[in-house]
C-alpha cells in the first residue's frame, strides 16, 4: 500500500529533515509512528498523504510509483487517503456537520446521500448532539473528534493520523484508539503518529520510531525506551 525506499526530504533549500527512510505499510496494517518533537513525524506523514514530494528516493502509493504519476492523477489518489492533521484544520465558519461533509461535497456526492453518512460518522465519534456547533465553540477533544470524523467519512483505504490523541484525556484516547481498531478491522490501513509511546506499546501494533529524521528499527526503539 505504501512503500518508501531511501527517501530523503527537505523543506525548500533547508537541511534534510528526513533521511534514508525505507518502510512498507501493507494493506490492512496498523502502524504507530513515535519519536521526540521535531524528529520528523509530521513531515513523514505529509509525504505519505501526498502533501510533500520527496527530495530523493522512491515513494510508491497504492502500487503506483509517484515519480510516474502526473499531477492531475494525484487527485483521485488523494481521495483514498484520510488525514487527521495535528492542528485539526477545521474550517471555523462551518458547522461540525459541514466540516465533516466537506470531503463528500468535494467528491460531488449528492446532498441527499451524504446527510445520513455524515450524521452516522459524527454519532460514531460521540458528537451526535454537536452537528450544528462551530469548531471554535467545541473543546479541543471535540474538535479532534470532528477532525477524525472528517478524515474517515470517505471510508479511505489509508488513514494518516497526526497526534490524534494529543488533546484528549486517557479515557478519550483509549476510546479513539478503539475507533481506529474498528476502522482497521473494516480494512483501512492506518498510520498514527503519537508522542504517547505507552499508548503505542499497549496496542501491540508495529511501532516505527523516528529519531532526528532517521527511522530506528523496532528493536532499537524498544532498547531506547
Amino acid at each position, binding site marked *: 500500500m505504501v512503500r518508501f525506499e531511501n527517501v530523503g526530504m527537505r523543506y525548500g533549500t533547508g537541511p534534510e529533515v528526513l533521511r534514508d527512510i525505507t518502510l512498507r505499510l501493507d494493506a490492512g496494517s496498523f502502524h504507530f509512528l513515535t519519536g521526540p518533537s521535531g524528529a520528523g513525524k509530521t513531515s513523514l506523514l505529509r509525504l505519505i*498523504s*501526498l*502533501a*510533500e*514530494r520527496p527530495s530523493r528516493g522512491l515513494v510508491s502509493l497504492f502500487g503506483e510509483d509517484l515519480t510516474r504519476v502526473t*499531477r*492531475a492523477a*494525484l*487527485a*483521485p*489518489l*488523494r*481521495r483514498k*487517503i484520510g*488525514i487527521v492533521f495535528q492542528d485539526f*484544520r477545521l*474550517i471555523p*465558519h*462551518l*458547522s461540525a*456537520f*459541514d466540516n465533516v*461533509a*466537506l*470531503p463528500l*461535497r*468535494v*467528491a460531488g456526492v449528492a*446532498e441527499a446521500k451524504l446527510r445520513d453518512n455524515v450524521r452516522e460518522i459524527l454519532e460514531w465519534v460521540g458528537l451526535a448532539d454537536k452537528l450544528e456547533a462551530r469548531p471554535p465553540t467545541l473543546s479541543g477533544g471535540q474538535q479532534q473528534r470532528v477532525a477524525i470524523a472528517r478524515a474517515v467519512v470517505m471510508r479511505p483505504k489509508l488513514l494518516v493520523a497526526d497526534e490524534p490523541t494529543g488533546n484528549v484525556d486517557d479515557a478519550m484516547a483509549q476510546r479513539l484508539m478503539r475507533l481506529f481498531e474498528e476502522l482497521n478491522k473494516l480494512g483501512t490501513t492506518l498510520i498514527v503518529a503519537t508522542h504517547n509511546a505507552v499508548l503505542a506499546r499497549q496496542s501491540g501494533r508495529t511501532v516505527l520510531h523516528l529519531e532526528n529524521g532517521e527511522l530506528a528499527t523496532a528493536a532499537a526503539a524498544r532498547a531506547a525506551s
Partner: protein
Amino acid sequence: MNPPGLAIPFGRDGGSRFLPALTMLMVFLAGLALAAVMGLEHTLADWNRGLTGTLTVELPAATGAGDKSLAAALAVLHATPGIKSATPIDRAATMKLIEPWLGTSLSPADLELPRLIDVRLDPTARPDLAALRAKLTQAAPGSVLDDHQLWLDSLARFARSAELTALAVLALIGGVAVLSVAFATRTGLAVHRDIIELLHLMGARDGYIARQFERQALRLALIGGVAGLALAATALLALEHATGAAALFGPGVTLLPALHLRGWNWAMLVALPPIAGLVAMATARLTVLATLRRLP
C-alpha cells in the same frame, strides 16, 4: 447550484472585508472620472453644434434715421446661398445683453449701440466667408463679420486638452482600480492558504477549488461595485440638479458645464461594477491557481 456549506466564507475575516469597501471606492471614483470625460465630450459637441451654424454681423451705431446700412447688409445676407436666416437683433434684446453691466437706468437712446444681425447657416452649407465679408464691407461700411472661429478654435483646444486630461485621469483611476481590486482579492485569499491546501489534500481539482473562491470574489466585488455605482450616480444626479438650478438664474448663466449624460453614458457607468467583479474573479482564479501550483 453551490452545495450549502461549501462556499468558503471569506469575507468574515477583516482582511477581505477590505475588498467590497475598496471596490466601492474605486467604482465611485472611476464613475466620476468617466462621467467627467463623457460630460465634457457632450459639452464640446454642443458648443460645436451651437456655434458652427451661426454668424454675427456687427454694424456700427446708426448715424441717423436715414441710415440704410442695416437694410443693405440684410439684403446681401439674404442673397447669399447657404444662409437660412438673418435676423437683426432689436435694441431691446441688445439692451438685455448689456443690462448686467450697465443697469436699467440708461435709456437706449442715450447709447450708441452697435447693431447686430444674427445669421443662421444651413447645417450643410459652407459659404465663402471671405467673399461675404468683402460684399458686406461694400454694402455697409464698418461692418464686421464674426464667424466665432477664433473663439471656437481656442475653446476647442482648451476643451480637447481638458478632455485628454480627464481621459488620462480615467485611465489612471482605472489602472489603480484594477490593481487595488486585484490586491484586495489577493489579501483576502492569503488568509485562506490553509483551506486551499486542505481542499487540495482532500482530492479537489485545481479548477474546482479556484471556482469556490472566484464566486466569493465576484460576489464581494459586485456588492462593493453596486454600492460605489449608487454613490457615483447620486453624486452625478446632484451635480446635474445643481447645474439645472444655476440655469434658473438666467438662460446665459451656467456656473457648471452641463453634464447631459445620455442613456448609453449611464450604461457605461452601470458596466463598472461587473468590470470590477470580473477583475476580482480573474484575480481570485489566478491567485488560487498560483497557490496550488506550489503544492505537489
